[in-house]
Protein backbone atom coordinates (compact mmCIF):
# COMPACT_ATOMS: atom_id res chain seq x y z
CA UNK A 1 0.00 0.00 0.00
CA UNK A 2 1.40 3.47 -0.83
CA UNK A 3 2.49 5.54 2.12
CA UNK A 4 0.10 8.41 1.37
CA UNK A 5 -2.91 6.18 1.55
CA UNK A 6 -1.81 4.78 4.91
CA UNK A 7 -1.32 8.20 6.42
CA UNK A 8 -4.62 9.34 4.91
CA UNK A 9 -6.38 6.43 6.51
CA UNK A 10 -4.57 7.17 9.73
CA UNK A 11 -5.73 10.80 9.70
CA UNK A 12 -9.24 9.72 8.85
CA UNK A 13 -9.17 7.28 11.72
CA UNK A 14 -7.94 9.86 14.21
CA UNK A 15 -10.58 12.30 13.04
CA UNK A 16 -13.19 9.56 13.42
CA UNK A 17 -12.17 8.86 17.02
CA UNK A 18 -12.05 12.54 17.93
CA UNK A 19 -15.30 13.63 16.33
CA UNK A 20 -17.46 10.55 16.96
CA UNK A 21 -18.42 11.37 20.58
CA UNK A 22 -19.51 14.88 19.65
CA UNK A 23 -21.47 13.64 16.66
CA UNK A 24 -23.24 11.08 18.85
CA UNK A 25 -24.30 13.47 21.59
CA UNK A 26 -25.09 16.29 19.15
CA UNK A 27 -28.61 15.16 18.10
CA UNK A 28 -29.78 15.23 21.70
CA UNK A 29 -28.37 18.68 22.41
CA UNK A 30 -29.54 20.19 19.13
CA UNK A 31 -33.10 18.85 19.31
CA UNK A 32 -33.45 19.42 23.03
CA UNK A 33 -32.06 22.92 22.64
CA UNK A 34 -34.57 23.81 19.94
CA UNK A 35 -37.73 22.19 21.32
CA UNK A 36 -36.96 22.16 25.06
CA UNK A 37 -34.66 24.92 26.25
CA UNK A 38 -35.19 27.61 23.63
CA UNK A 39 -38.98 27.78 24.15
CA UNK A 40 -38.49 28.01 27.89
CA UNK A 41 -36.06 30.93 27.56
CA UNK A 42 -38.12 32.55 24.82
CA UNK A 43 -41.13 32.41 27.16
CA UNK A 44 -39.41 35.13 29.19
CA UNK A 45 -39.10 37.23 26.01
CA UNK A 46 -42.76 36.78 25.07
CA UNK A 47 -43.83 37.59 28.63
CA UNK A 48 -42.47 41.14 28.47
CA UNK A 49 -44.21 41.90 25.18
CA UNK A 50 -47.77 42.56 24.14
CA UNK A 51 -48.38 39.42 22.13
CA UNK A 52 -51.65 38.00 20.85
CA UNK A 53 -52.42 34.55 19.49
CA UNK A 54 -53.53 36.11 16.21
CA UNK A 55 -52.04 39.61 16.33
CA UNK A 56 -48.48 38.48 17.16
CA UNK A 57 -45.80 40.67 18.71
CA UNK A 58 -47.12 44.19 19.39
CA UNK A 59 -44.04 45.55 21.13
CA UNK A 60 -42.21 45.67 24.45
CA UNK A 61 -44.32 46.50 27.50
CA UNK A 62 -41.97 45.61 30.35
CA UNK A 63 -43.53 43.81 33.28
CA UNK A 64 -47.10 44.85 32.52
CA UNK A 65 -48.19 41.27 31.80
CA UNK A 66 -46.83 40.20 35.18
CA UNK A 67 -48.53 43.00 37.08
CA UNK A 68 -51.77 42.31 35.20
CA UNK A 69 -51.68 38.63 36.00
CA UNK A 70 -50.64 39.11 39.63
CA UNK A 71 -53.54 41.53 40.09
CA UNK A 72 -56.08 38.91 38.96
CA UNK A 73 -57.95 37.12 41.73
CA UNK A 74 -58.33 34.22 39.25
CA UNK A 75 -54.57 33.72 39.18
CA UNK A 76 -54.30 33.45 42.95
CA UNK A 77 -57.32 31.17 43.04
CA UNK A 78 -55.62 28.92 40.47
CA UNK A 79 -52.43 28.91 42.60
CA UNK A 80 -54.38 27.96 45.72
CA UNK A 81 -56.28 25.22 43.87
CA UNK A 82 -53.07 23.82 42.41
CA UNK A 83 -51.28 23.66 45.76
CA UNK A 84 -54.33 22.20 47.46
CA UNK A 85 -54.66 19.42 44.85
CA UNK A 86 -50.88 18.91 44.97
CA UNK A 87 -50.79 18.45 48.76
CA UNK A 88 -53.89 16.24 48.77
CA UNK A 89 -52.26 13.98 46.22
CA UNK A 90 -48.58 13.91 47.22
CA UNK A 91 -48.83 13.27 50.96
CA UNK A 92 -51.43 10.46 51.10
CA UNK A 93 -49.85 8.93 48.00
CA UNK A 94 -46.41 8.79 49.60
CA UNK A 95 -47.68 7.24 52.84
CA UNK A 96 -49.76 4.71 50.93
CA UNK A 97 -46.88 3.87 48.59
CA UNK A 98 -44.46 3.26 51.48
CA UNK A 99 -47.03 1.06 53.17
CA UNK A 100 -47.79 -1.03 50.08
CA UNK A 101 -44.07 -1.30 49.32
CA UNK A 102 -43.48 -2.62 52.85
CA UNK A 103 -46.21 -5.23 52.30
CA UNK A 104 -44.69 -6.20 48.95
CA UNK A 105 -41.19 -6.43 50.48
CA UNK A 106 -41.65 -10.03 51.53
CA UNK A 107 -41.04 -13.49 50.19
CA UNK A 108 -44.32 -13.50 48.24
CA UNK A 109 -45.68 -16.12 45.92
CA UNK A 110 -46.27 -14.70 42.43
CA UNK A 111 -44.19 -11.56 43.15
CA UNK A 112 -44.40 -10.25 39.60
CA UNK A 113 -48.18 -10.60 39.57
CA UNK A 114 -48.63 -8.37 42.62
CA UNK A 115 -46.12 -5.82 41.41
CA UNK A 116 -47.84 -5.64 38.03
CA UNK A 117 -51.22 -5.49 39.75
CA UNK A 118 -50.43 -2.23 41.54
CA UNK A 119 -48.89 -0.80 38.36
CA UNK A 120 -51.94 -1.32 36.10
CA UNK A 121 -53.29 2.26 36.52
CA UNK A 122 -50.02 3.66 35.15
CA UNK A 123 -50.93 2.62 31.60
CA UNK A 124 -54.32 4.35 31.74
CA UNK A 125 -54.20 7.83 30.20
CA UNK A 126 -54.96 10.68 32.65
CA UNK A 127 -57.72 11.76 30.27
CA UNK A 128 -59.35 8.33 30.58
CA UNK A 129 -58.88 8.41 34.36
CA UNK A 130 -60.51 11.84 34.39
CA UNK A 131 -63.53 10.59 32.45
CA UNK A 132 -64.01 7.55 34.69
CA UNK A 133 -63.62 9.50 37.93
CA UNK A 134 -65.81 12.32 36.67
CA UNK A 135 -68.63 9.77 36.48
CA UNK A 136 -67.73 8.05 39.77
CA UNK A 137 -67.70 11.42 41.56
CA UNK A 138 -70.76 12.85 39.76
CA UNK A 139 -72.81 14.98 42.17
CA UNK A 140 -76.02 13.41 40.87
CA UNK A 141 -76.13 9.74 39.90
CA UNK A 142 -72.44 9.15 40.61
CA UNK A 143 -70.96 5.94 41.98
CA UNK A 144 -69.70 7.30 45.32
CA UNK A 145 -72.84 9.27 46.09
CA UNK A 146 -74.95 6.20 45.29
CA UNK A 147 -72.87 4.21 47.76
CA UNK A 148 -73.18 6.98 50.38
CA UNK A 149 -76.96 7.29 50.04
CA UNK A 150 -77.40 3.51 50.10
CA UNK A 151 -75.82 3.42 53.57
CA UNK A 152 -77.99 6.33 54.68
CA UNK A 153 -75.48 9.17 54.39
CA UNK A 154 -75.91 12.51 52.63
CA UNK A 155 -74.48 12.79 49.11
CA UNK A 156 -71.37 14.97 48.77
CA UNK A 157 -70.96 17.84 46.30
CA UNK A 158 -67.84 16.38 44.72
CA UNK A 159 -67.89 18.99 41.96
CA UNK A 160 -69.57 21.96 43.63
CA UNK A 161 -67.60 21.97 46.90
CA UNK A 162 -64.01 23.17 46.34
CA UNK A 163 -62.44 20.93 48.98
CA UNK A 164 -64.20 17.77 47.83
CA UNK A 165 -63.49 18.64 44.19
CA UNK A 166 -59.80 18.89 45.07
CA UNK A 167 -60.05 15.55 46.88
CA UNK A 168 -61.68 13.94 43.84
CA UNK A 169 -59.01 15.29 41.47
CA UNK A 170 -56.22 14.32 43.88
CA UNK A 171 -57.67 10.81 43.99
CA UNK A 172 -57.23 10.56 40.19
CA UNK A 173 -53.56 11.48 40.57
CA UNK A 174 -53.22 9.00 43.43
CA UNK A 175 -54.93 6.30 41.40
CA UNK A 176 -52.45 6.64 38.56
CA UNK A 177 -49.20 7.23 40.48
CA UNK A 178 -49.37 5.36 43.81
CA UNK A 179 -48.44 2.03 42.24
CA UNK A 180 -45.58 3.58 40.27
CA UNK A 181 -44.08 5.14 43.39
CA UNK A 182 -44.68 1.91 45.29
CA UNK A 183 -42.44 0.04 42.87
CA UNK A 184 -39.71 2.71 43.17
CA UNK A 185 -39.83 2.54 46.98
CA UNK A 186 -39.90 -1.25 46.91
CA UNK A 187 -36.68 -1.27 44.89
CA UNK A 188 -35.06 1.08 47.39
CA UNK A 189 -36.23 -1.10 50.29
CA UNK A 190 -34.74 -4.21 48.76
CA UNK A 191 -31.43 -2.43 48.27
CA UNK A 192 -31.08 -1.82 52.02
CA UNK A 193 -28.24 -4.07 53.25
CA UNK A 194 -29.66 -6.90 55.32
CA UNK A 195 -26.88 -6.63 57.94
CA UNK A 196 -28.22 -3.21 58.99
CA UNK A 197 -31.54 -4.84 59.80
CA UNK A 198 -29.74 -7.70 61.55
CA UNK A 199 -27.88 -5.15 63.67
CA UNK A 200 -31.21 -3.65 64.70
CA UNK A 201 -32.44 -7.10 65.68
CA UNK A 202 -29.33 -7.60 67.82
CA UNK A 203 -30.18 -4.33 69.52
CA UNK A 204 -33.60 -5.74 70.31
CA UNK A 205 -35.77 -3.83 67.82
CA UNK A 206 -39.07 -5.44 66.86
CA UNK A 207 -40.52 -5.35 63.33
CA UNK A 208 -42.36 -2.05 63.73
CA UNK A 209 -39.31 -0.37 65.27
CA UNK A 210 -37.08 -1.76 62.53
CA UNK A 211 -39.42 -0.32 59.91
CA UNK A 212 -39.58 3.19 61.35
CA UNK A 213 -36.02 3.45 62.73
CA UNK A 214 -34.05 1.64 60.03
CA UNK A 215 -36.03 1.21 56.81
CA UNK A 216 -37.76 4.59 56.56
CA UNK A 217 -34.64 6.71 57.36
CA UNK A 218 -32.67 4.78 54.74
CA UNK A 219 -35.46 5.46 52.21
CA UNK A 220 -35.16 9.21 52.64
CA UNK A 221 -33.16 9.92 49.46
CA UNK A 222 -35.69 7.89 47.46
CA UNK A 223 -38.60 9.59 49.20
CA UNK A 224 -37.13 12.99 48.29
CA UNK A 225 -36.67 11.84 44.69
CA UNK A 226 -40.33 10.85 44.59
CA UNK A 227 -41.37 14.16 46.17
CA UNK A 228 -39.32 16.20 43.67
CA UNK A 229 -40.72 14.38 40.64
CA UNK A 230 -44.28 14.66 41.91
CA UNK A 231 -43.72 18.36 42.64
CA UNK A 232 -42.60 19.05 39.08
CA UNK A 233 -45.53 17.10 37.64
CA UNK A 234 -48.10 18.02 40.27
CA UNK A 235 -47.74 21.79 40.00
CA UNK A 236 -48.29 21.60 36.22
CA UNK A 237 -51.44 19.46 36.55
CA UNK A 238 -53.88 19.95 33.68
CA UNK A 239 -55.42 16.73 32.32
CA UNK A 240 -57.37 15.54 35.36
CA UNK A 241 -59.06 18.83 36.33
CA UNK A 242 -59.60 19.63 32.63
CA UNK A 243 -61.58 16.40 32.21
CA UNK A 244 -63.50 16.77 35.48
CA UNK A 245 -66.40 18.35 33.58
CA UNK A 246 -67.29 18.73 29.91
CA UNK A 247 -66.62 22.48 29.79
CA UNK A 248 -63.07 22.36 31.05
CA UNK A 249 -62.79 25.75 32.75
CA UNK A 250 -62.42 24.36 36.24
CA UNK A 251 -66.00 24.51 37.48
CA UNK A 252 -68.70 27.17 37.69
CA UNK A 253 -66.77 29.21 40.26
CA UNK A 254 -63.39 27.99 38.98
CA UNK A 255 -63.19 26.00 42.18
CA UNK A 256 -60.83 23.48 40.58
CA UNK A 257 -59.09 25.57 37.93
CA UNK A 258 -55.31 24.99 38.13
CA UNK A 259 -52.47 27.30 37.05
CA UNK A 260 -51.86 25.41 33.79
CA UNK A 261 -55.60 25.56 33.01
CA UNK A 262 -55.46 29.31 33.65
CA UNK A 263 -52.42 29.55 31.36
CA UNK A 264 -54.33 27.69 28.63
CA UNK A 265 -57.37 29.89 29.05
CA UNK A 266 -55.29 33.08 28.81
CA UNK A 267 -53.45 31.93 25.70
CA UNK A 268 -56.02 29.92 23.77
CA UNK A 269 -59.33 30.73 25.48
CA UNK A 270 -61.28 33.96 25.33
CA UNK A 271 -58.33 36.36 25.78
CA UNK A 272 -55.87 34.86 23.27
CA UNK A 273 -53.14 36.75 25.06
CA UNK A 274 -49.80 35.00 24.66
CA UNK A 275 -47.94 37.67 26.63
CA UNK A 276 -49.96 37.01 29.77
CA UNK A 277 -49.94 33.25 29.24
CA UNK A 278 -46.13 33.39 29.01
CA UNK A 279 -45.99 35.47 32.20
CA UNK A 280 -48.02 32.79 34.01
CA UNK A 281 -45.70 30.08 32.61
CA UNK A 282 -42.63 31.91 33.92
CA UNK A 283 -44.14 32.49 37.35
CA UNK A 284 -45.01 28.79 37.60
CA UNK A 285 -41.53 27.89 36.38
CA UNK A 286 -39.94 30.02 39.11
CA UNK A 287 -42.21 28.49 41.75
CA UNK A 288 -41.21 24.99 40.64
CA UNK A 289 -37.49 25.90 40.61
CA UNK A 290 -37.79 27.45 44.06
CA UNK A 291 -39.41 24.33 45.50
CA UNK A 292 -36.89 22.07 43.75
CA UNK A 293 -33.98 24.09 45.22
CA UNK A 294 -35.45 23.84 48.72
CA UNK A 295 -35.85 20.10 48.16
CA UNK A 296 -32.26 19.80 46.94
CA UNK A 297 -30.92 21.67 49.95
CA UNK A 298 -32.84 19.22 52.11
CA UNK A 299 -31.45 16.27 50.16
CA UNK A 300 -27.88 17.47 50.62
CA UNK A 301 -28.32 17.86 54.37
CA UNK A 302 -29.79 14.41 54.61
CA UNK A 303 -27.03 12.95 52.44
CA UNK A 304 -24.41 14.54 54.71
CA UNK A 305 -26.01 13.33 57.90
CA UNK A 306 -26.35 9.87 56.41
CA UNK A 307 -22.68 9.65 55.37
CA UNK A 308 -21.95 6.77 57.74
CA UNK A 309 -24.52 4.58 56.00
CA UNK A 310 -22.94 2.06 53.60
CA UNK A 311 -23.46 2.50 49.84
CA UNK A 312 -26.92 1.27 49.04
CA UNK A 313 -26.17 0.82 45.37
CA UNK A 314 -23.72 -2.01 46.05
CA UNK A 315 -26.34 -4.56 46.84
CA UNK A 316 -28.46 -4.30 43.73
CA UNK A 317 -31.98 -5.51 43.34
CA UNK A 318 -33.09 -8.83 44.71
CA UNK A 319 -36.18 -10.13 43.10
Amino acid at each position, binding site marked *: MPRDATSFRHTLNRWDVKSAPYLYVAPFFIIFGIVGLFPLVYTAYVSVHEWGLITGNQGFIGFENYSDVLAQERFWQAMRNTFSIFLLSTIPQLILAIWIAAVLDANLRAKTFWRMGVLVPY*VVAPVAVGLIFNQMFADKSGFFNAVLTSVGMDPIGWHSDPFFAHMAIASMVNFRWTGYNTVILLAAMQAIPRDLIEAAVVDGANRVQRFFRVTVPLLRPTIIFVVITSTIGGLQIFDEPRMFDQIGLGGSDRQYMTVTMYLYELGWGSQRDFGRAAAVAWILFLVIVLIAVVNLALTRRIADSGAHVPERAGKGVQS
Partner: protein
Amino acid sequence: MSNQMPIGMIEQTAGKGAARAAARRRVRYDQGVRRPTWVTYLLLTVFVAISVFPLYYAFLLASSTAAEIAKDPIPSLLPQGHLWENVKRVLDADIGFWKALLNSVIVSTVTAVSVVFFSTLAGFAFAKLRFRGRGFLLAFVIGTMAVPTQLGIVPLFIVMAKLGWTGHLAAVIVPGMVTAFGVFWMTQYLSQALPYELIEAARVDGCSMIRVFWHIALPAARPAAAVLALFTFVFAWTNFFWPFVVLGSTNPTLPVALQLLQATYFKDMALIMAGVVLATVPLLVMFAVAGRHLVSGIMQGAIKG
Protein backbone atom coordinates in the same frame (compact mmCIF):
# COMPACT_ATOMS: atom_id res chain seq x y z
CA MET B 1 -42.33 -14.53 67.00
CA SER B 2 -43.98 -15.16 70.38
CA ASN B 3 -42.34 -18.49 71.06
CA GLN B 4 -38.87 -17.21 70.17
CA MET B 5 -36.25 -16.30 72.74
CA PRO B 6 -35.48 -12.54 72.75
CA ILE B 7 -32.15 -11.81 71.06
CA GLY B 8 -30.96 -9.95 74.15
CA MET B 9 -31.35 -13.13 76.18
CA ILE B 10 -29.36 -15.12 73.61
CA GLU B 11 -26.62 -12.51 73.85
CA GLN B 12 -26.47 -12.84 77.64
CA THR B 13 -26.54 -16.61 77.70
CA ALA B 14 -24.55 -17.58 74.61
CA GLY B 15 -22.45 -14.51 73.74
CA LYS B 16 -22.34 -11.92 70.95
CA GLY B 17 -21.57 -14.25 68.09
CA ALA B 18 -24.54 -16.44 68.84
CA ALA B 19 -26.74 -13.36 69.17
CA ARG B 20 -25.69 -12.10 65.77
CA ALA B 21 -26.30 -15.48 64.18
CA ALA B 22 -29.74 -15.64 65.77
CA ALA B 23 -30.53 -12.15 64.53
CA ARG B 24 -29.54 -13.15 61.02
CA ARG B 25 -31.78 -16.18 61.22
CA ARG B 26 -34.63 -14.09 62.49
CA VAL B 27 -34.31 -11.46 59.76
CA ARG B 28 -34.29 -14.19 57.19
CA TYR B 29 -37.24 -15.75 58.97
CA ASP B 30 -39.20 -12.49 58.95
CA GLN B 31 -38.35 -11.15 55.54
CA GLY B 32 -36.70 -13.86 53.56
CA VAL B 33 -37.43 -17.55 53.63
CA ARG B 34 -40.70 -17.46 55.54
CA ARG B 35 -43.80 -17.19 53.41
CA PRO B 36 -46.00 -14.26 54.47
CA THR B 37 -49.37 -15.02 56.05
CA TRP B 38 -52.80 -14.73 54.45
CA VAL B 39 -53.14 -11.20 55.91
CA THR B 40 -50.46 -9.97 53.51
CA TYR B 41 -52.22 -11.56 50.55
CA LEU B 42 -55.56 -10.14 51.66
CA LEU B 43 -54.05 -6.64 51.85
CA LEU B 44 -52.45 -7.01 48.45
CA THR B 45 -55.70 -8.29 46.96
CA VAL B 46 -57.46 -5.18 48.28
CA PHE B 47 -54.74 -2.91 46.81
CA VAL B 48 -54.91 -4.56 43.42
CA ALA B 49 -58.72 -4.57 43.48
CA ILE B 50 -58.72 -0.81 44.11
CA SER B 51 -56.19 -0.33 41.29
CA VAL B 52 -58.31 -2.27 38.85
CA PHE B 53 -61.84 -1.35 39.97
CA PRO B 54 -62.18 2.01 38.13
CA LEU B 55 -61.28 0.22 34.91
CA TYR B 56 -63.81 -2.51 35.58
CA TYR B 57 -66.39 0.16 36.40
CA ALA B 58 -65.73 1.86 33.06
CA PHE B 59 -66.18 -1.51 31.37
CA LEU B 60 -69.48 -2.07 33.24
CA LEU B 61 -70.85 1.30 32.15
CA ALA B 62 -69.63 0.73 28.60
CA SER B 63 -71.69 -2.43 28.44
CA SER B 64 -74.78 -0.70 29.80
CA THR B 65 -77.08 1.97 28.36
CA ALA B 66 -77.24 5.67 29.16
CA ALA B 67 -80.80 5.28 30.47
CA GLU B 68 -79.80 2.49 32.84
CA ILE B 69 -76.86 4.52 34.16
CA ALA B 70 -79.08 7.55 34.73
CA LYS B 71 -81.47 5.37 36.73
CA ASP B 72 -78.77 3.75 38.86
CA PRO B 73 -75.05 4.63 38.71
CA ILE B 74 -74.24 1.07 39.77
CA PRO B 75 -76.24 -0.74 37.08
CA SER B 76 -75.00 -4.21 37.92
CA LEU B 77 -71.71 -5.71 38.98
CA LEU B 78 -71.84 -7.98 35.94
CA PRO B 79 -71.40 -6.64 32.41
CA GLN B 80 -74.58 -6.06 30.44
CA GLY B 81 -74.99 -6.90 26.77
CA HIS B 82 -74.61 -3.47 25.20
CA LEU B 83 -70.84 -3.27 24.76
CA TRP B 84 -70.73 -3.85 20.99
CA GLU B 85 -73.56 -1.47 20.40
CA ASN B 86 -71.74 1.28 22.37
CA VAL B 87 -68.41 0.52 20.72
CA LYS B 88 -70.05 0.85 17.30
CA ARG B 89 -71.54 4.18 18.31
CA VAL B 90 -68.06 5.41 19.32
CA LEU B 91 -66.68 4.33 15.95
CA ASP B 92 -69.54 6.14 14.19
CA ALA B 93 -69.36 9.22 16.40
CA ASP B 94 -68.17 12.49 14.98
CA ILE B 95 -64.73 12.35 16.59
CA GLY B 96 -62.74 10.46 13.96
CA PHE B 97 -61.92 7.49 16.16
CA TRP B 98 -60.01 5.49 13.55
CA LYS B 99 -57.95 8.50 12.60
CA ALA B 100 -57.19 9.16 16.26
CA LEU B 101 -56.15 5.54 16.79
CA LEU B 102 -53.88 5.61 13.76
CA ASN B 103 -52.43 8.96 14.87
CA SER B 104 -51.72 7.60 18.34
CA VAL B 105 -50.02 4.52 16.90
CA ILE B 106 -47.86 6.67 14.61
CA VAL B 107 -46.93 9.25 17.23
CA SER B 108 -46.15 6.67 19.94
CA THR B 109 -44.14 4.38 17.66
CA VAL B 110 -42.08 7.08 15.98
CA THR B 111 -41.41 8.81 19.30
CA ALA B 112 -40.34 5.55 20.97
CA VAL B 113 -38.00 4.55 18.12
CA SER B 114 -36.49 8.01 17.93
CA VAL B 115 -35.94 8.37 21.68
CA VAL B 116 -34.33 4.94 21.87
CA PHE B 117 -32.03 5.60 18.91
CA PHE B 118 -30.78 9.05 19.96
CA SER B 119 -30.53 8.03 23.62
CA THR B 120 -28.45 4.96 22.81
CA LEU B 121 -26.22 6.99 20.52
CA ALA B 122 -25.59 9.66 23.15
CA GLY B 123 -25.49 7.10 25.97
CA PHE B 124 -22.79 5.12 24.16
CA ALA B 125 -20.65 8.24 23.82
CA PHE B 126 -21.14 9.29 27.44
CA ALA B 127 -20.58 5.81 28.84
CA LYS B 128 -17.67 4.53 26.75
CA LEU B 129 -15.91 7.30 24.82
CA ARG B 130 -13.48 9.89 26.20
CA PHE B 131 -13.88 13.44 25.01
CA ARG B 132 -13.37 16.94 26.30
CA GLY B 133 -16.44 18.38 28.02
CA ARG B 134 -17.91 14.95 28.72
CA GLY B 135 -18.42 15.53 32.44
CA PHE B 136 -19.97 18.93 31.93
CA LEU B 137 -22.29 17.77 29.16
CA LEU B 138 -23.45 14.76 31.16
CA ALA B 139 -24.14 16.97 34.18
CA PHE B 140 -26.12 19.21 31.84
CA VAL B 141 -28.23 16.25 30.68
CA ILE B 142 -28.94 15.20 34.27
CA GLY B 143 -29.75 18.79 35.22
CA THR B 144 -32.26 19.16 32.40
CA MET B 145 -34.16 16.03 33.46
CA ALA B 146 -35.93 18.14 36.06
CA VAL B 147 -36.73 21.07 33.75
CA PRO B 148 -40.50 21.46 33.24
CA THR B 149 -40.31 21.91 29.45
CA GLN B 150 -44.11 21.88 29.24
CA LEU B 151 -43.95 25.49 30.38
CA GLY B 152 -42.30 26.50 27.09
CA ILE B 153 -45.61 25.81 25.41
CA VAL B 154 -46.31 29.39 24.26
CA PRO B 155 -43.16 29.90 22.15
CA LEU B 156 -43.32 26.29 20.96
CA PHE B 157 -46.79 26.98 19.64
CA ILE B 158 -45.59 30.22 18.00
CA VAL B 159 -42.80 28.27 16.25
CA MET B 160 -45.18 25.52 15.12
CA ALA B 161 -47.62 28.11 13.79
CA LYS B 162 -44.78 29.82 11.87
CA LEU B 163 -43.77 26.47 10.37
CA GLY B 164 -47.39 25.76 9.50
CA TRP B 165 -47.28 22.58 11.57
CA THR B 166 -50.31 23.21 13.80
CA GLY B 167 -52.75 20.38 13.23
CA HIS B 168 -49.97 18.11 11.91
CA LEU B 169 -48.50 15.13 13.72
CA ALA B 170 -44.97 16.47 13.23
CA ALA B 171 -45.79 19.17 15.79
CA VAL B 172 -46.25 16.43 18.39
CA ILE B 173 -43.53 14.04 17.22
CA VAL B 174 -40.56 16.41 16.84
CA PRO B 175 -40.63 17.89 20.38
CA GLY B 176 -40.75 14.33 21.76
CA MET B 177 -37.86 12.94 19.73
CA VAL B 178 -35.25 13.13 22.50
CA THR B 179 -35.50 13.03 26.29
CA ALA B 180 -32.86 13.78 28.90
CA PHE B 181 -34.11 10.82 30.90
CA GLY B 182 -33.49 8.49 27.95
CA VAL B 183 -29.87 9.64 27.57
CA PHE B 184 -29.25 9.27 31.31
CA TRP B 185 -30.87 5.83 31.32
CA MET B 186 -28.82 4.47 28.40
CA THR B 187 -25.60 6.01 29.78
CA GLN B 188 -26.17 4.22 33.08
CA TYR B 189 -26.91 0.93 31.41
CA LEU B 190 -24.12 0.92 28.84
CA SER B 191 -21.45 1.96 31.33
CA GLN B 192 -21.90 -1.37 33.12
CA ALA B 193 -23.24 -3.63 30.34
CA LEU B 194 -20.70 -2.93 27.58
CA PRO B 195 -17.10 -4.03 28.28
CA TYR B 196 -14.28 -1.82 26.94
CA GLU B 197 -12.52 -4.97 25.65
CA LEU B 198 -15.31 -5.54 23.15
CA ILE B 199 -14.97 -2.02 21.76
CA GLU B 200 -11.17 -2.25 21.62
CA ALA B 201 -11.32 -5.60 19.85
CA ALA B 202 -13.63 -4.16 17.23
CA ARG B 203 -11.35 -1.14 16.81
CA VAL B 204 -8.30 -3.38 16.35
CA ASP B 205 -10.23 -5.27 13.69
CA GLY B 206 -10.61 -1.97 11.85
CA CYS B 207 -14.18 -1.03 12.70
CA SER B 208 -15.02 2.66 12.34
CA MET B 209 -16.72 4.30 15.29
CA ILE B 210 -20.15 4.18 13.69
CA ARG B 211 -19.75 0.44 13.05
CA VAL B 212 -18.71 -0.05 16.66
CA PHE B 213 -21.92 1.68 17.65
CA TRP B 214 -24.06 -0.27 15.22
CA HIS B 215 -22.57 -3.75 15.69
CA ILE B 216 -21.38 -3.66 19.33
CA ALA B 217 -23.16 -0.96 21.35
CA LEU B 218 -26.65 -1.25 19.90
CA PRO B 219 -26.96 -5.03 20.41
CA ALA B 220 -25.55 -4.72 23.95
CA ALA B 221 -28.08 -2.00 24.74
CA ARG B 222 -31.08 -4.09 23.72
CA PRO B 223 -32.60 -4.91 27.17
CA ALA B 224 -32.46 -1.32 28.42
CA ALA B 225 -33.58 -0.03 25.03
CA ALA B 226 -36.71 -2.21 25.19
CA VAL B 227 -37.64 -0.82 28.60
CA LEU B 228 -37.01 2.75 27.44
CA ALA B 229 -39.15 2.13 24.36
CA LEU B 230 -41.99 0.86 26.56
CA PHE B 231 -41.91 3.91 28.83
CA THR B 232 -41.72 6.31 25.92
CA PHE B 233 -44.59 4.56 24.16
CA VAL B 234 -46.81 4.73 27.26
CA PHE B 235 -45.94 8.40 27.76
CA ALA B 236 -46.70 9.33 24.14
CA TRP B 237 -49.94 7.30 24.11
CA THR B 238 -51.28 8.96 27.27
CA ASN B 239 -49.93 12.48 26.62
CA PHE B 240 -52.68 15.08 26.38
CA PHE B 241 -51.77 18.74 27.02
CA TRP B 242 -49.49 19.53 24.06
CA PRO B 243 -51.38 17.42 21.46
CA PHE B 244 -54.61 19.05 22.66
CA VAL B 245 -53.13 22.52 22.18
CA VAL B 246 -51.34 22.02 18.88
CA LEU B 247 -53.44 19.40 17.05
CA GLY B 248 -56.95 20.55 17.80
CA SER B 249 -60.01 18.48 17.01
CA THR B 250 -59.41 18.00 13.28
CA ASN B 251 -56.43 15.65 13.56
CA PRO B 252 -56.56 14.26 17.10
CA THR B 253 -54.65 11.60 19.01
CA LEU B 254 -56.76 9.26 21.19
CA PRO B 255 -56.73 11.39 24.39
CA VAL B 256 -57.73 14.45 22.35
CA ALA B 257 -60.53 12.44 20.72
CA LEU B 258 -61.72 11.29 24.16
CA GLN B 259 -61.91 14.89 25.29
CA LEU B 260 -63.94 15.65 22.18
CA LEU B 261 -66.25 12.72 22.93
CA GLN B 262 -66.93 14.12 26.39
CA ALA B 263 -67.48 17.67 25.13
CA THR B 264 -69.95 16.50 22.45
CA TYR B 265 -71.84 13.64 24.10
CA PHE B 266 -71.45 14.45 27.81
CA LYS B 267 -74.92 13.14 28.66
CA ASP B 268 -74.25 9.71 27.17
CA MET B 269 -72.08 7.99 29.79
CA ALA B 270 -72.32 4.57 28.14
CA LEU B 271 -70.84 6.01 24.95
CA ILE B 272 -68.06 7.91 26.75
CA MET B 273 -67.05 4.85 28.77
CA ALA B 274 -67.00 2.74 25.62
CA GLY B 275 -64.55 5.30 24.23
CA VAL B 276 -62.45 5.04 27.39
CA VAL B 277 -62.37 1.26 27.08
CA LEU B 278 -61.40 1.42 23.40
CA ALA B 279 -58.58 3.87 24.06
CA THR B 280 -57.24 1.91 27.04
CA VAL B 281 -57.41 -1.69 25.80
CA PRO B 282 -54.34 -1.46 23.50
CA LEU B 283 -52.10 -0.40 26.38
CA LEU B 284 -53.63 -2.99 28.71
CA VAL B 285 -52.80 -5.70 26.18
CA MET B 286 -49.27 -4.35 25.90
CA PHE B 287 -49.04 -4.26 29.69
CA ALA B 288 -50.17 -7.89 29.98
CA VAL B 289 -47.42 -8.93 27.57
CA ALA B 290 -44.57 -6.66 28.70
CA GLY B 291 -45.67 -5.30 32.09
CA ARG B 292 -42.97 -7.17 34.01
CA HIS B 293 -40.34 -5.31 32.01
CA LEU B 294 -41.96 -2.05 33.09
CA VAL B 295 -41.78 -3.22 36.71
CA SER B 296 -38.12 -4.17 36.47
CA GLY B 297 -37.38 -0.97 34.57
CA ILE B 298 -38.83 1.19 37.33
CA MET B 299 -36.95 -0.84 39.94
CA GLN B 300 -33.61 -0.50 38.17
CA GLY B 301 -34.22 3.21 37.62
CA ALA B 302 -34.92 3.67 41.32
CA ILE B 303 -31.64 2.06 42.37
CA LYS B 304 -29.51 4.06 39.98
CA GLY B 305 -31.48 7.30 40.14
